[in-house]
């Protein structure tokens, strides 16, 4: 009992630690100024943490890709002055120095203004999306009533920047990439939004903290009431995740920068720091979408089991975020790229109908929340059927004419 109390107190102290620290720093300021400084501190901390995450995410991605491909990945860059290698942990900074010192080449025929604006805009939009995500119980930078809408509004603008980059470069590969980026955005915005609607529906709010709160608690004492552990939530999460892969231009949907087809797509004519900005924006976007996925379906900052609640919420959020990012990398290491027409067909003929049906499933789930006893099994069975049957049927439609083959032999 005492131990539990100790855990609880340390837990709550740790929980509010970031806020306490901030108040320690800014508490002496007069009120309007304090608000401003508080916001600035919040933004600064977020950017620092996400920036560091970005730096080490690039390293982690390369190292994990390397390990999957039976090689070590970057491990040689030493820490300057002390010349200690330490698994190449200085690599991201070396990359940064390289990117900054490289010559910035702008093609002669390029639309110079747009060519410059594109990476800046992309980064700005990506950072904007990061603002609304609740990183912990007390760690929300921007509290909007319509935060979900804000997130997707800002996210939708990123593809505009990709288009700008592709168009401004005056390179045919870039132009093709720009067209691809537009088509991809139009196709995947819809399933992305539709997959989010059930989560909003069940929470009855567009505010992200409310959605996280709605996923608190445990059914049967151990199963977290995260959306992902319900049939509709699982389906929604998968649809969201696939669409997020497409939205953040990650493999297997990295068509705008398909390196085997379009050299580097919209990045072909970018070099030096601008290229690094694109890279950064891609990872920020990936983090933002992962954070959104965690918030909407994986219970946000909620602990997975009751007795683990003493660990602060932001740690849980970080753990979940990192595991989702790991899946991003894992998928990149495994899958080849889709073709443009397959990509759009997959969105329109598979994801969108599934997401629509999933809306119905979620409605059923919320209407039958009161069912208990044996009716619980009926509830699960119906919901599972509502998810699996359309999945199987649509999947069969989608993969019609594509199947493993048998081969004959001439002897």
């Amino acid at each position, binding site marked *: 009992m005492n131990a539990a109390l100790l855990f609880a107190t340390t837990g709550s102290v740790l929980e509010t630690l970031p806020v306490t620290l901030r108040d320690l720093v800014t508490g002496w300021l007069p009120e309007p100024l304090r608000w401003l400084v508080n916001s600035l501190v919040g933004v600064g901390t977020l950017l620092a943490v996400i920036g560091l995450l970005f730096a080490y995410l690039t390293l982690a991605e390369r190292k994990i*890709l390397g390990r*999957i*491909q*039976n*090689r070590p990945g970057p491990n040689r860059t030493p820490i300057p002055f002390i010349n200690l290698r330490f698994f190449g942990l200085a690599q991201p900074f070396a990359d940064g120095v390289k990117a900054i010192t490289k010559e910035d080449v702008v093609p002669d*025929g390029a639309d110079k203004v747009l060519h410059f604006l594109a990476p800046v805009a992309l980064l700005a939009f990506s950072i904007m999306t990061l603002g609304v995500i609740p990183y912990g119980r007390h760690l929300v930078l921007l509290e909007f009533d319509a935060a979900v809408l804000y997130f997707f509004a800002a996210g939708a603008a990123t593809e505009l920047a990709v288009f700008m980059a592709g168009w401004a470069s*005056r*390179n*045919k*590969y870039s*132009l*093709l990439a720009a067209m691809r980026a537009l088509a991809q955005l139009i196709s995947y915005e819809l399933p992305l939004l539709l997959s989010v609607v059930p989560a909003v529906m069940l929470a009855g709010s567009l505010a992200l903290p409310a959605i996280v709160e709605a996923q608190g608690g445990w059914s049967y004492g151990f199963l977290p009431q995260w959306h992902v552990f319900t049939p509709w939530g699982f389906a929604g999460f998968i649809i969201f995740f696939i669409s997020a892969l497409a939205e953040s231009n990650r*493999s*297997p949907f*990295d*068509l705008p920068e*398909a*390196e*085997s*087809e*379009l*050299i580097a797509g919209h990045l072909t004519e970018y070099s030096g720091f601008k290229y690094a900005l694109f890279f950064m924006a891609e990872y920020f976007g990936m983090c933002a979408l992962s954070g959104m996925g965690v918030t909407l379906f994986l219970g946000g900052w909620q602990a997975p089991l009751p007795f683990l609640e003493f660990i602060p919420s932001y740690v849980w959020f970080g753990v979940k975020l990192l595991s989702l990012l790991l899946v991003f990398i894992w998928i*990149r*290491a*495994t*899958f*080849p*790229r*889709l*073709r*443009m*027409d*397959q990509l759009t067909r997959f969105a329109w003929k598979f994801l969108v109908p599934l997401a629509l049906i999933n809306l119905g499933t979620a409605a059923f789930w919320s209407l039958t929340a009161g069912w208990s006893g044996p009716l619980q099994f009926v509830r699960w069975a119906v919901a599972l059927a509502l998810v699996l049957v359309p999945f199987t049927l649509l999947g069969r439609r989608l*993969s019609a*004419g*594509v*199947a*493993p*083959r048998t*081969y*004959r*032999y*001439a*002897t």
Partner: protein
Amino acid sequence: MNPELLTPGGANVRAVHDAFHGDLLEVSMGPHHPSTHGVFRMIVTLDGERIVKLKPVFGYLHRNHEKLGETVSYLGSMPYTDRLDYLSAMTNNWAYAIAVEKLAGQPVPERAEYVRVILAELTRLLNHTCLAGFLMQDCGCSGTPLMYAFREREKILDLFESLSGSRMMCNYQRFGGCRVDPTPAWVDATRTLVGNYGAFLDEFEALLTGNEIIMARTQGVGVLSAALAINAGVTGPMLRATGVASDLRKSDAYGVYPRFQFRVPLGAHGDVYDRYMVRVLEMRESIRILEQALAGLPGGPIMDPKAKLRGFRPKAGEAYGRIEGPKGEIGFYLVSDGGPNPLRYRVRPPSFINLTVLEDMCLGQTVADAVIILGSVDIVLGEVDR
């Protein structure tokens, strides 16, 4: 086609300028493009992303191979054949050796024939493994299948290195046998490798063959009809993928191949997936051949004792030697006037001839398809451009 586009230097600027003038976009893919497998160039005319015209341009790696063959001795050409299709030096060596042996009437000891079969099949494994890796890289895998393929290829290359002294430029076959006799340790190492290769293929196939994305990307893409393939002189796995049973190992029965039990896998659709699968199945048959050849490897000399190395002058005449290389029929045509150099030296490069049907396969497909169709042809520019 604007003739100016073909001129090097400034051609790209001009192409960019012109391309924006029509609905059609003309893209010059290569010679410096990540997936043209070397310095190969495709001038692709696109309607949206569909290809309405494709003009292959090659010759960037031309090294005067055939003329060079006429200026050096018969033996001197042997290391140059390594550099034709640098993934399958051993089979190139063998085809050239067969041509010269025919010309000179040079017999080959049985042990050498067995060693040649072993090396040719190892080369086939190596080449097809690499090709599958490259193809998947073209499909957009981030290097993973390629790295697995290279991991296994390294093991075969290690065998080649410990036998011939070089990983890729083996220069191993000689007229009337092989240069070095494989030691029992080498044979054991080969046996181990062959024994493990099936397991690797299983894992490789688990990663790729059933993958829905790969099936969607490759099935029905780049279809080549059997009639066109025959008319164009296409050979090797590409021809067999169209369903034509043609394998020189069966029809020519050169070397000691008739002694081995193996089957020839045939495709039915002639698309990229069939080309990939035919190669994978061929690898499994190669493993069977290797097991039989390693089990039956006889003793005896590796070189015909009467074979001459210095002062080799075959009598006047002509000969065409060909074998079933990993990429198709690799053949060498030689005319001798009795001198130390061939009077005429001509290569039948399989990947060059297979490449001629590229446009037919690509029309109506998208840019992304063109890349994998090119990948499925299995070209090596060293051989295409010679």
